[in-house]
């Protein structure tokens, strides 16, 4: 049994390889992009709208509300990044119930890539909002002695992001496979339903934590408290 879909290599040319992670990522991307395009090509600004548009507006509105609630700022600059993280992860996790589908989020490479994106997005948004000096000052708050600890904190939380999502998704799929071999009837269904719930929650946690980190970088002198509380809620 493969723990990560990275191990399933479909094609390789030197260091360039096409494995199941990348393939299913493309599938998820295609579902998201083509679905969005099909719905939004006939989008209407009237009160009467299609079901698909209504669903997209509910999703986008919900994400914007969450961003606004967390950051206490205008959510539009962060909507694309945080919303894309959430949608990609949740679609990947939900599709895990499809037989034969291996969620890309069950790959540590994918979760690491997403965590690295968050790691890069935090200083980008921070500098965009506060300027370079304003952002860098956060690393020497409350005293310059805290500089190494702040840097370690940045790296460790990125690692935590990647490993948390990978561990949850991978373990969910692995447990379902093991139970399927031990108790083939009924119980795997319950575990898969639990895995769906876990996958949606993990997508929510990943997106919320990303927004918390970005918000802590964009709000001067007030981001550390939000970061600590966000970590505690995610682990719980």
């Amino acid at each position, binding site marked *: 049994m493969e*723990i*990560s879909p*990275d*191990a399933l290599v479909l094609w390789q040319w030197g*260091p*360039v*390889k096409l*494995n199941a*992670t*990348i393939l299913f*990522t*493309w599938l998820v*991307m295609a579902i*998201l*992009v083509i679905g*969005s*395009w099909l719905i*939004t090509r006939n*989008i*209407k*600004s*009237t*009160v009467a*709208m299609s079901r698909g*548009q209504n669903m*997209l*507006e509910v999703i*986008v*509105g919900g994400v914007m509300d969450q961003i606004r609630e967390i950051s206490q700022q205008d959510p*539009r600059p962060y*909507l*694309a*990044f945080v*919303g*894309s*993280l959430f*949608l*990609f992860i949740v679609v990947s996790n939900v599709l895990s119930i499809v037989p034969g589908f291996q969620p*890309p989020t069950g*790959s*540590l*490479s*994918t979760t*690491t*890539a*997403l965590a*690295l*994106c968050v790691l890069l997005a935090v200083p980008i948004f921070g500098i965009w909002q506060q300027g370079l000096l304003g952002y860098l000052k956060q690393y020497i708050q409350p005293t310059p002695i805290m500089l190494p600890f702040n840097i370690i904190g940045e790296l460790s939380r990125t690692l935590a992001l990647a490993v948390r999502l*990978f561990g949850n998704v991978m373990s969910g799929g692995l447990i379902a496979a093991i139970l399927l071999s031990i108790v083939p009837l009924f119980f795997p269904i319950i575990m898969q339903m639990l895995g769906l719930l876990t996958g949606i929650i993990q997508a929510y946690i990943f997106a919320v934590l990303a927004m918390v980190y970005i918000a802590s970088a964009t709000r001067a002198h007030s981001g550390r408290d939000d970061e600590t509380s966000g970590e505690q809620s995610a682990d719980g």
Partner: protein
Amino acid sequence: MLFDGFTVFAQIVNFLILLFLLRRFLYRPVLNAMQERERHIAEQLEQADQKHQQAEEEYQRYQAQNQELHEYYVQKQRQAEEEVEIWRKEALQTAHQEVDATLHNWRQSIALEKDDFAAGLRQFAVQQTYVIARRALRDLADADFEKRMVAVFLSRLKQNQIDLTQLEQGYSETIDVVLTLRSAFELSPALQEQIRRELQTHLVKNITLRYEIVPNLNAGIELVGQNGSQVAWNLRRYLEALEDELDEQIQEPVDKQKGRMEA
């Protein structure tokens, strides 16, 4: 191996591509639609506010017009009441005047009727008195009333108890005095001559006496000069006293009736 460097790089690229595509096909159109809808709803709300404001202004204007109409109505009602009051007073005054005029006419009519009745009664009383006196004198004293009256008149004339000077006033000395002797009864020529002679003895000027019978002359004789002066010897004075007595007797129940009507 759990971790693959190329896959990490590829997933970063994939995520960035997904980010770009979702921004292009999901977030931007959805946000635009939501903003357009919010703008449309805001415009509708603003239009609704404007219409509400217009309706409020219309309501205020209607209230003002209503108030103005009410004041106009009250003013007109007051004016109508005043006009009705004036008309009522005028009508009342006219009615009073008409009643007064009617009452006055009625009183005049009553007075005329009373006068007519009194005149008729007086005439009847005179005639009856004259008839009774004449009959009583003839039956009881064997005397003629007319002759006795003329005899008494001549007697008084002889005793200068009758003033005849007024009959001569206004005449020149050369012209005869023309006198008219009126009597209610036929005077015999002898009596006429006796009266003329007696008159001539008392008057300075020559007289020309004309005789005239007037039946309603109150049973006596009367001398009338051309200057309008008169010397009467008849029952008029007694009859006037009788008339006054009759008037008092008639007027008393009329005054009582009038007092009851005014009460």
